[in-house]
């Protein structure tokens, strides 16, 4: 028994070290004075200063944030609809197809999604003249599409765990389907919608492959800039950037845990 739990704890410890060592090393080396990234030259914040003077990175960051915010918002609207349709609208023709289309983007390799969307945009442009050229708009459409799937899954699972009698009770007390959705369902799935939005935002901010396919010239997102920089080797500026992004994520996750905590109090009450 003792030996068993020693093995378990040991391998779990190894697993967590494995998960966190790269992140921690990124953070530490972002404060390295030396330009040779692996040679420790003492503490310094000069790479952060360099980062804030790098116009290319700043522009790409702004563009990526803009795309991520718009895509996440669109994805939340469409994904909530899809999740709601799948779990609350009973049977209808095409339900199987819709649920297939919602699940597949989650595991579809990015290269396929990216290539297929690009070819679609090219075909649409030659047939209808829209979208005229590729850039921010086409990236937003592409990101909305795959983020929609994540939101739909999160919303669907939240709805599945939600006591359906709450919605029946509202109907029983005279709420029409529309007011039922906005007064009862929406507030109760709000945590799922918030986490769906955050997830979409992160995924959009992170996407390299799909954006590379569907973006046009002069529309480099942050991952595209990072990729072109690091492809040639380790870059201290990217380390600094990574540290900042990890910080943002850490704050967001703490906020999310706080929201989930509140949500759990509701669950206990049921």
């Amino acid at each position: 028994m003792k030996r068993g739990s020693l093995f378990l704890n040991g391998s779990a410890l190894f697993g967590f070290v494995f998960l966190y060592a790269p992140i921690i090393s990124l953070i530490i080396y972002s404060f390295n004075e030396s330009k040779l990234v692996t040679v420790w030259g003492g503490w310094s914040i000069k790479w952060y200063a360099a980062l804030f003077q790098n116009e290319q990175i700043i522009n790409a960051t702004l563009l990526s944030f803009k795309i991520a915010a718009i895509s996440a918002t669109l994805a939340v609207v469409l994904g909530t609809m899809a999740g709601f349709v799948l779990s609350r609208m009973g049977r209808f023709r095409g339900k199987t197809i819709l649920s297939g289309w919602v699940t597949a983007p989650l595991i579809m390799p990015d290269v396929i999604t990216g290539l297929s969307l690009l070819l679609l945009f090219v075909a649409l442009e030659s047939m209808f003249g829209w979208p005229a050229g590729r850039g921010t708009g086409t990236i937003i459409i592409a990101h909305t599409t795959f983020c929609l799937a994540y939101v739909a899954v999160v919303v669907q699972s939240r709805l599945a765990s939600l006591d359906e009698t709450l919605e029946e009770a509202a109907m029983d007390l005279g709420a029409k389907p529309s007011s039922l959705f906005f007064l009862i369902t929406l507030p109760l799935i709000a945590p799922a919608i918030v986490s769906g939005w955050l997830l979409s935002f992160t995924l959009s901010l992170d996407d390299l492959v799909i954006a590379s396919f569907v973006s046009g010239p002069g529309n480099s997102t942050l991952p595209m800039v990072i990729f072109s920089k690091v492809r040639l080797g380790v870059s201290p500026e990217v380390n600094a950037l990574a540290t900042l992004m990890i910080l943002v994520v850490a704050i967001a996750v703490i906020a999310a845990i706080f929201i989930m905590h509140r949500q759990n109090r509701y669950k206990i009450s049921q």
Partner: protein
Amino acid sequence: MPTSPQIDPSKLNSPASWRDPEAKPFVQIEQISKKFGAFTAVDSVSLDIYKNELFCLLGGSGSGKSTLLRMLAGFDKPTSGRILIDGVDMSNIEPWKRPVNMMFQSYALFPHLSVEANVAFGLRREGVRSQEVKQRVAEMLDMVQLGHLAKRKPFMLSGGQRQRVALARALIKRPKLLLLDEPLGALDKKLREETQFELINLQDELGITFIVVTHDQEEAMTLATRIGVMNQGQIAQIAEPHQVYECPNSRFVAEFIGNVNMFEGTVMSEDSDSVTVHSPDMDNLIKIDKEHATGCAPTQSVCVAIRPEKMRISRDPMDGNTNTTSGIVTDYAYMGSQSIYKVRLHSGKEVRVTLPNAIRDMGDRLTWDDSVYLSWDSESGVVLTS
């Protein structure tokens, strides 16, 4: 709200509309069926419920009682048949337009709304002015003694308090019909007993027709004006509580409600005031008063049901040559208010006898392996033909 178990005697004496053949039923359920795929949850049930009734649908899980209730509320659409409430056909009326409210088994309190907002929800949907909403909510909360908790969220309440919020929320729209799905199921035993009487009083006070679904026979007995016993999607018997217990119409109802001893046998003879049945389990014949032996004729195979508390047990032989038999005590349990004996008859059949512990006598008790005689009155048994 008075919590004493006394019920206003004048109300008890008021004429029971269900006994009046002229009375117009308030809820008419006509030949209603509900199928889920190949499974028939409710199988052509017809049922009339009268104004001011507290009707209990009693049955085990899967008996169709909850489905019937959900069809009344409008959550499930009947496969065939229809429901009329106060003369209006409900078939095409959506749940949010029905003059019916429901108290859910889980209470279904909206977790994101305060007690006050939960109770006000129905009135707000009707477009009642906010001043009036405020006033009516306050009155209703006072009535269920929750005025001081108005601002709380449901998760901050105890089980009993939640139950009363659910009740207040369902009552505030003054529905013509209140549906209650296992209203006391989530409460502990003691609270349940208190609440039963509160419910009865409330129903009397408000004059709303109640339909209660429950699997708990004691609850049904206490609450109901009439009970509908359900089995496999059908109504097995509709009767007043004491009739369901004393005069069950089938083996199913007799065995479902309380404990019962069954003797299978053949009808031997029939005269003007009694029926005689021969059972191979008995030392001699069983005699049953005619009024408890309807629908049988000589040579027919029947069952005779006798409740354990209606049997007498003694070491000494009993008088008379009917309704007596003998056996050996095989099991004995002291339960405080009563004692239970299991007696094996000569045929090998075991019967159950309960004896109230009326006197604090610890002396000469019947015990294991005692030879005993059993007897009962001819008015105690019931002949069951199905």
